[in-house]
C-alpha cells in the first residue's frame, strides 16, 4: 500500500461538512481484498481491538487495505478522545487507487493518525508489533498540545452554538469570531476591547486599591513599605494581623498572611523581597478566598477557592491523609481535570511548620490542615461554585470594582466569611482584580455547578441576534463566473457596502486590488474574511480550491451556480464525468446557510438538480419563463428571474420587479445572451442578499464591461472601423456563448484568434476547433505561454484537427506568440470586419490591444 497526496480539507468539501484528511492510496491487487488474506483481520483486531467492523464493500465480500486504513485512522483518533465520526473510502477510475477520507478535529492529530494507521496496517500485514498504548498516548498528547485550552474552548463552543463563525489565528489562544468588518477577537479570557491600560492598572495593586476605594469598594487598608521597619510601622498603624506581599506580584508568590508579630513580619518581608523590590503591607482579612467573575456589567460566576488541605481523623499522619486524598480519581496531574494532586513538597512542609505540624504529625479529628496558602487548582487547591450564594450588594461591589478598573472581563478576588452577606458587614474586602482571569474554576469547578461563562463572554461581544457574519456570496459554474462575481460586487458597492471580491484576476477590497493572479481559492477568500474593512464578500469559487482544501467558510448567504454545460477541466483530480463535476460544484449549494439562497440556472438540468441539496431557498433563473421548472417554482411562490419583452423580470408570488435590458449596458440591449445570463444570476443574488432594488438598477446601469471592470470579459474595441472583441473564454461552452454573442453583431468578414489550454481533455480542445469552424472565415491559432504539460505544438494540432472540414473557415494560420498573433489578426482587418481574440495573458494582451487601438 502506498499513501500519496495527503490533503487537509479545512472546510466543507465534496465529501462532507467536516474538516477531513484526504489521501490517495494505491493498493496492490492483494491489498484490494486484504481481508481475504488469512489471519489479517485477526492480527488487526489483536493490535487494535476497538477498530470498527470491516463492512465488505466489494462484490466478493472483501475489504481493501485503503478501507482498513480509513477505519484505523478514524478509530485511533476516536480512541484518543477526538470527537470524530465521518470517514469514507472511494475507488477511483484507476484500478487499485482509492481516495481515503476521514474527519479530524485537529489537523496535526489527523495527519499523525494517518501515519499511525499506516503502521498499524503494516504491522497487521507483517505480523509485527504495534504499540497501541503509545500510539494513543502520542495522539492524546499532541491533541492536548494543539487544541484550544478549556477557557478559550468554552468561548468558542458558545460562539458555535450561536452560529458565529470562528477561526484560530495562531497556534495559541488568539481566535477571531465573525468576518470582515464585524470580526471580533479573543485571546484566552481577554476580548479585543480589553484595554491595555486597564490591565496595567490591575497589575498595580496600590493604584487598584486607590481606585477601588474611590468607587466605594471595600479594600484592605495599607500601603507600600520602604523597609522592614516601615512595614512594622504600617502594621501598627492599620492594626495586626497583616498581610505582607510583593507589589505587582502574581500567583501568590512571596505572600505571607496573618502576620501578627515583629519576628513574623521580618521573615515575611524578606520572603516577599525575593520576588519584588516593592513590598506592601495590608490589613489581614480573615475568611475564605472567593473569586467572582464579571463579564460586561454582570457577575456571571463565583467560586470559593480552598487551598489544598486535609482534615484530621486523629489516627493518620498528615502524609497518610494527603496520600488518601490524592487517591481521588478526579485528582489528575495535568491542567485538564477539575482537581489536581496535592503536592507534598518543601512549600507544603513550610506551610505545615507554620501550623506547628510536620509530615508525620497526627492531626486531631476534624482539624483542618493546610498544605499551601494559595488556592490555585494547579497546586491541589479546589474550587467550589457559589454563584447562587452571592448577595446583591456583593455583586454590586464586585461589578463596581471591574468597572472602575475598566476591565470588561475581570476576576475579582474577595476575602470574607461568606458571599451571602454584604462584604462590609463582615469586615471583608476586595484584595485583587485580575485581567484575563482563568475560567476553569467556573466551567468545571471541583464541586458544584459549572457556569455558562463562554456564553456570557460571547454575549458581551455580540448582541442578541448578531452572529458576526457579513453577507457572503459564492459563485461557481463553468462559464460566466467572473462577470457574475464582478457584477454582484458592483451592485453591493452601489448599495454602500465595502465589498471584498475574489476571482481569477485577484483579490479586491473596496475597489482596490490587493492581490493578483488566480485568487479563486479558499486562501484568498479567507483573506477577504479577515480584512477589517470588508462589509460583504463575493467569491468566485473555483473547483481547484474546493478539491484542495474545501471551502473557506462554513456557510454562505447566497450560492450562485451559473452553469455546468459540457464541463471544463474534466479529467483532473479524479473528476472525470459531468456528474463528478456537479458533485464538486454543488458543495457551495450544500453549504448555503439555512436562511440563505441558492441561485441556480434552471436551463441547465445538472445545475437545476442541485436545488435538492440546498437547505435554504432557491431562486431559479432562465431566459425562458415557460421553462417547466421555472413555471412550477413560480407557481409555488418561490423566486424566479427571467427575460420578458426586453426586461429582466424578478418574480416572487404576486410581487415583481422589472429592469429594462436597455438599462443594462453589458447586455448590449439584451443582444449578448451570455451576459443576460450573468445579469440574471447577479440580480437574483443581489435580491437574495436583500439589496434595495434601486441600488440593483443603478448598479446594473453603471456596470460597464470595459477592461477596468472585467478584464478579459467581452471587452470591445473599435480598430480602424473594425470591431475587436477580447475575451478569456477557454472551453467549448464559453466559445459557443461567445460565438452566439458575436453573431448578433453585424460584420463583413469574421476572424478568430485562439489558443487552447493544455490541461483540457483532447476532445475538448478539438471541439473548440470544430465550433470555431462554423462561425469564422479565418482562424489564427497561437501557442500560449504555458503549455500545461503539452508537447510543443500539440494543442495547435488538436485545434487544427477540430477545424478539419469546417463549413465556414477558409483560412487557418499557426503562429507562435500571443502578441504576434494579435498583430497579425489586426493587420488583416478592414472596415466593418469583426475579430474575436481569445486572450491568454489577459492584462498584457488587453494592454497590447489597447495600445494598437490607440495607435490606429
Amino acid at each position, binding site marked *: 500500500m502506498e499513501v500519496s497526496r495527503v490533503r487537509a480539507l479545512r472546510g466543507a468539501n465534496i465529501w462532507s461538512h467536516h474538516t477531513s484528511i484526504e489521501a490517495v492510496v494505491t493498493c496492490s491487487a492483494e491489498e484490494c481484498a486484504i481481508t481475504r488474506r488469512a489471519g489479517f483481520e485477526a492480527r488487526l483486531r489483536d493490535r487494535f481491538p476497538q477498530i470498527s467492523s470491516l463492512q465488505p464493500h466489494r462484490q466478493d465480500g472483501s475489504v481493501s487495505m485503503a478501507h482498513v486504513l480509513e477505519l484505523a485512522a478514524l478509530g485511533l483518533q476516536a480512541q484518543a478522545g477526538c470527537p470524530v465520526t465521518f470517514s469514507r473510502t472511494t475507488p477511483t477510475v484507476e484500478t487499485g487507487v482509492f481516495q481515503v477520507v476521514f474527519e479530524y478535529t485537529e489537523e496535526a492529530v489527523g495527519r499523525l493518525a494517518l501515519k499511525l494507521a499506516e503502521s498499524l496496517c503494516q504491522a497487521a500485514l507483517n505480523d509485527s508489533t504495534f504499540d497501541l498504548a503509545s500510539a494513543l498516548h502520542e495522539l492524546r498528547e499532541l491533541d492536548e498540545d494543539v487544541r484550544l485550552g478549556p477557557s478559550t474552548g468554552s468561548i468558542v463552543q458558545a460562539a458555535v452554538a450561536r452560529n458565529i463563525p470562528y477561526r484560530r489565528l495562531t497556534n495559541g489562544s488568539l481566535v477571531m469570531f465573525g468576518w470582515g468588518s464585524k470580526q471580533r477577537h479573543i485571546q484566552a479570557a481577554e476580548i*479585543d476591547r480589553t484595554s491595555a491600560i486597564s490591565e496595567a492598572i490591575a497589575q498595580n495593586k496600590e493604584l487598584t486599591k486607590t481606585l477601588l476605594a474611590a468607587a466605594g469598594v471595600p479594600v484592605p487598608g495599607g500601603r507600600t513599605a520602604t523597609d522592614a521597619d516601615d512595614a512594622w510601622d504600617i502594621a501598627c498603624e492599620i492594626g495586626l494581623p497583616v498581610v505582607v506581599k510583593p507589589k505587582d506580584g502574581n500567583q501568590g508568590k512571596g505572600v505571607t498572611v496573618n502576620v501578627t508579630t515583629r519576628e513574623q513580619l521580618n521573615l515575611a518581608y524578606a520572603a516577599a523581597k525575593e520576588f519584588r523590590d516593592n513590598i506592601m503591607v495590608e490589613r489581614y482579612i480573615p475568611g475564605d478566598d472567593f473569586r467572582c467573575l464579571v463579564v460586561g456589567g454582570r457577575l456571571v460566576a463565583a467560586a470559593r477557592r480552598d487551598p489544598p488541605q486535609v482534615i484530621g481523623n486523629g489516627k493518620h499522619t498528615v502524609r497518610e491523609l494527603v496520600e488518601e486524598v490524592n487517591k481521588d480519581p478526579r485528582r489528575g496531574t495535568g491542567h485538564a481535570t477539575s482537581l489536581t494532586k496535592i503536592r507534598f513538597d518543601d512549600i507544603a512542609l513550610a506551610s505545615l511548620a507554620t501550623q506547628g505540624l510536620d509530615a508525620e504529625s497526627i492531626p486531631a479529628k476534624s482539624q483542618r490542615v493546610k498544605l499551601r496558602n494559595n488556592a490555585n487548582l494547579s497546586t491541589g487547591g479546589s474550587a467550589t461554585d457559589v454563584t447562587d450564594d452571592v448577595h446583591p450588594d456583593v455583586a454590586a461591589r464586585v461589578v463596581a470594582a471591574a468597572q472602575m478598573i475598566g476591565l470588561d472581563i475581570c476576576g475579582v478576588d474577595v476575602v470574607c466569611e461568606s458571599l451571602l452577606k454584604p462584604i462590609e458587614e463582615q469586615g471583608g474586602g476586595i484584595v485583587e482584580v485580575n485581567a484575563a482571569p482563568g475560567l476553569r474554576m467556573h466551567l468545571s469547578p471541583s464541586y458544584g455547578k459549572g457556569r455558562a461563562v463562554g456564553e456570557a463572554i460571547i454575549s458581551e461581544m455580540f448582541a442578541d441576534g448578531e452572529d458576526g457574519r457579513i453577507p457572503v456570496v459564492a459563485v461557481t459554474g463553468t462559464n460566466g463566473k467572473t462577470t457574475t462575481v464582478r457584477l454582484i460586487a458592483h451592485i453591493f458597492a452601489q448599495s454602500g457596502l465595502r465589498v471584498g471580491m475574489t476571482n481569477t484576476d485577484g483579490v479586491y477590497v473596496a475597489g482596490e486590488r490587493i492581490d493578483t493572479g488566480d485568487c479563486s481559492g479558499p486562501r484568498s477568500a479567507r483573506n477577504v474574511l479577515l480584512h477589517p474593512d470588508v462589509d460583504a464578500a463575493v467569491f468566485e469559487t473555483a473547483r481547484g480550491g474546493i478539491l484542495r482544501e474545501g471551502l473557506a467558510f462554513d456557510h454562505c448567504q447566497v450560492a450562485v451556480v451559473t452553469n455546468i454545460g459540457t464541463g471544463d477541466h474534466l479529467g483532473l483530480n479524479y473528476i472525470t464525468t459531468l456528474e463528478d463535476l456537479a458533485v464538486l460544484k454543488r458543495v457551495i449549494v450544500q453549504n448555503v446557510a439555512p436562511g440563505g439562497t441558492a441561485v441556480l440556472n434552471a436551463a441547465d438540468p445538472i445545475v437545476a438538480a442541485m436545488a435538492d441539496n440546498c437547505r435554504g431557498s432557491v431562486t431559479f433563473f432562465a431566459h425562458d419563463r415557460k421553462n417547466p421548472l421555472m413555471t412550477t417554482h413560480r407557481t409555488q411562490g418561490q423566486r424566479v428571474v427571467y427575460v420578458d419583452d426586453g426586461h429582466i423580470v424578478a418574480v416572487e408570488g404576486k410581487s415583481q420587479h422589472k429592469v429594462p435590458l436597455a438599462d443594462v449596458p453589458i447586455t448590449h440591449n439584451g443582444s449578448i445572451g451570455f451576459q443576460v445570463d450573468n445579469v440574471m444570476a447577479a440580480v437574483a443574488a443581489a435580491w437574495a442578499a436583500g439589496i434595495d432594488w434601486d441600488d440593483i438598477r443603478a448598479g446594473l446601469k453603471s456596470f460597464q464591461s470595459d477592461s477596468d471592470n472585467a478584464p478579459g470579459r467581452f471587452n470591445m474595441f473599435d480598430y480602424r472601423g473594425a470591431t475587436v472583441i477580447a475575451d478569456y473564454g477557454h472551453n467549448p461552452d464559453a466559445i459557443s456563448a461567445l460565438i452566439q454573442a458575436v453573431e448578433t453583431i453585424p460584420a463583413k468578414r469574421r476572424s478568430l484568434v485562439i489558443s487552447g489550454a493544455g490541461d483540457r481533455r483532447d476532445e475538448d480542445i478539438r471541439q473548440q476547433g470544430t465550433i470555431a469552424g462554423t462561425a469564422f472565415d479565418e482562424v489564427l491559432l497561437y501557442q500560449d505561454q504555458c503549455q500545461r504539460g503539452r508537447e510543443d505544438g500539440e494543442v495547435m494540432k488538436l485545434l487544427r484537427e477540430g477545424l478539419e472540414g469546417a463549413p465556414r473557415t477558409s483560412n487557418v494560420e499557426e503562429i507562435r506568440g500571443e502578441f504576434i498573433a494579435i498583430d497579425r489578426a489586426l493587420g488583416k482587418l478592414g472596415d466593418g470586419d469583426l475579430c474575436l481574440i481569445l486572450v491568454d495573458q489577459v492584462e498584457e494582451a488587453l494592454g497590447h490591444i489597447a495600445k494598437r487601438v490607440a495607435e490606429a
Partner: protein
Amino acid sequence: MTKKKDIEVLRVTHLRGPNIWTYRPVIETWLDIGELEDLPSNKIPGLYERLTAWLPGLIEHRCGVGERGGFLERLKEGTWAGHILEHVVLELQNLAGMRTGFGKTRSTSVHGVYKMAFRTRQEKVGRAAFALGRDLLMAAIDDKPFDLKQQLADLTDLADSYLLGPSTSHIVDAATERKIPSIRLTEGNLVQLGYGARQRRIWTAETDETSAIAEGIASDKDLTKSLLQSCGVPVPEGRMVDNPDDAWEAAEDIGLPVVVKPYDGNHGRGVSLDLKTRAEVEAAYHLADRKGSGVMVEKYITGTEHRLLVVGKSVVAAAAGETAWVTGDGKSNIIKLVDEQINTDPRRGTTEASPLNALAPEVGDAEINLELERQGLNVYSVPVAGQKVLIQRNGNVAFDVTDKVHPTIAAKAALAARIVGLDIAGVDMVLEDISKPIGEQQGAVIEVNASPGLLSHLKPAAGEPRPIGPAIMDHLFGPEQNGRIPIVGVAGSQGNNLIARMISWLIQATGKHVGLVCGDGLYLDNRQVEKRNCVNWDAGQRLLINRSVEAAVFENGARMILTEGLVYDKCSVGVVTDMQGHEALKEYYIDEPGDMYKVMRTQIDVVLPDGVAVLNGDEPAVVELAELCDGKVIFYGVAGDTEALARHREAGERVVYLHGDNVVLATGTEESALLPLSSLKHAKGIAPTAVMAAVAATWALGVTPELISAGLMTFESKLKKPNY
C-alpha cells in the same frame, strides 16, 4: 524675640486645586524675613550683581512692571526678600525643566511675615526648588559661595523623574488647550482626562481604547506580518531562523540582499541591513541573537525607513530616517571623523531631549562596527581623503515628512494599524519615496508598534513639529465633548452639608449617578461610603476619579480652600451661602470679615462660562461676588423680592425666592410657583434658605421644576443608618 537676618520658613503648603492665588496648583509658603524686612534689595550691596550672575534668566521676568527686565528693575530699586525668593524659585524651576510663570507675594498683618505662592507642576519638585531657592538667596544676601551647578543638576534629575514624560505632557497640554481637565493617577505617565463617568485614560501614547490583544499582536512580528499580508499590505518576505546556518539558508530562499534582526527588537538595535554574503549574514545573526528573543531574516527592501504615526483612522505625522556618512581626510580615524562630521550637529546629543543621538563608534556600537567591517574598515581605520564611509544606515527616524505622504501610503499605514487593532500606532515602512503611490515603488511595512514614541514628531530633527496631542484629543473626545460631568460646589458656613445632600438628592431624580462629599461623609447615590467628615481634597478627588459618577456635589469650606484648594478646576454651578466664619481662620491671617471675599470668591472664579453662580441674595457680601462669575448668576433668598433680586430680574435674569410659603422660580418677569415649603417631608427641620439654595442650584443645572418639586417632597433630611 530677636529678629535675625534670615528667611525663616513658617509653613509650606501645596494647594492642589484652585485657591486664593490662582486657578492652578501652587505652593504657598509663609515666610518670616525677620531683620531683612529692613533690608530691601537696594540696601544689600552686591546682591543684584550676585543674583543676576547666578540666574541671568531673571531678565525675562516681567513681574508687575509688565515687560522684560521688569523684575530686575524692581530688584534694583529695592524689593523685599519674600518677593525676590518668589522669582528665584520660579527661575530655578524653569532651569530644571519645569516651566511655570505665576508667583505672588503678599505681606500679612504681622510685621516681616509674608505669604509667598508660586505655581508648580509637581509638589516634590516645587518643594525642592523652594528649599534650593532659599539657600541660594541667603548665599547671595550673605555673599557666600554657592554651588548652583551641582544643585541645579540634582533638581533637574528630580524634575526628570517626577514630571510627566515629554510625550504625555504634550498630550495633557493638548487636553488643557481644549479645556479638558486632567488628573495624574500615578507618579508615572498614567493620566485621567476628564472627570467621573466622562473620563478617558492615557498612558503615554496608549489610550483606554488601546486593546491589550492588539498590543500582543503587534509584538508578535510574524503574526503581524501574516495578518498584514493577508489584507494586502505589503510586507517583506521572511521568517524566523534558529541558527547561523538556518539564517543563511533563509537568506538564499528569500533572495539576497537580506535584513537580519532580533524578533523583539526596537529602535533599530541589533538590526543589520543589506546583507549580501554568508559571512555578513552569520555575523548579523550573532548580533541580533544577543537580544535573546529569536532572530528573523527578511528580504532587504531598498529605501528609507519611515515612521508613520496613526491616530484613530488616519496618519497624523510621518518622519523619515537618514543614513549617516563621513568623508575621509586621509588623516583622521573613523572615531574622529564621526565626532567632527556627525556629532558636531547641534541636534545630536546624549539625552532624550536631543532630537538625534550622538554616535559613539569607539564604545563598541555593534551595528556601526558591522557596517564598517562590511566596508573593510574598523573604528581606527583612516580613510583616504575624499573616501565616503557609511556609518549608520538606519539612524534616527526624526525628519518630518508629514506633508509629503502620498494618500495611498497613508491609507496602507492606517489599514495596518486597523488590522492589528491599535487605535494609536507607529507604523514603520521602508519606502523609496513617500510622496509616490505605494503601487509605484518597492515598499513595505516592516513593523507596527504599540505605544509609539512621539518625540520624533514633536521635536523633529528637521521640519515642523506636529500637533499630535490635539489629534489624540480629537480621537478621544468628540468635537463637543470636554470630558466634564456636572459639578456643583457649595461654599459657606451655614448648614451647607444639608444643601449639598439636597442637591445630590434632586440630581438623582434625573436618573444620574451622583457622588457627594460633605461634612457627613462620602456618598455614592444614597450609599454612605465614608462616615467621617469628607470636606477635604482627597475625598473629593475620589468622586472625580470614579468612573460611575455622572454628577458630583462638593461641600467646600473656607478652611479647605485655604489649606488645600478646590478639588475641581472648574464647576458647572458654584453656590455661596454666606461669608461668615473669619473668626475661626485667624491662623491663616484672615483677620476681618472683608478678608473672606478673597477666600470665597475662589468658588465663583471657577464657574464655567456656561455655568451658573448661585448666590444668597439676602447677604450683601455674597451678592458682590456676582460680578466675578464667567457664567450666569441666580440669586436666591427668603426675604421676599429684595432689591438685589429685583434688579437681577429686571435684567431678565433668574431668581428663586419665597413668596409666602411658596418657592417661586422667576426669570425676568415670568415666574412660576414650584411648591409650598410646608409640603416637604420634614419641613420643620429644614431651613428655608437651604431649600432655596438647593432649588436654585438644581434649576441652574437644568433639572426641570417638576423633578425638583417631586424630589423635594421625597427628600429625607435626617440621615438614615448607613447601609454601607
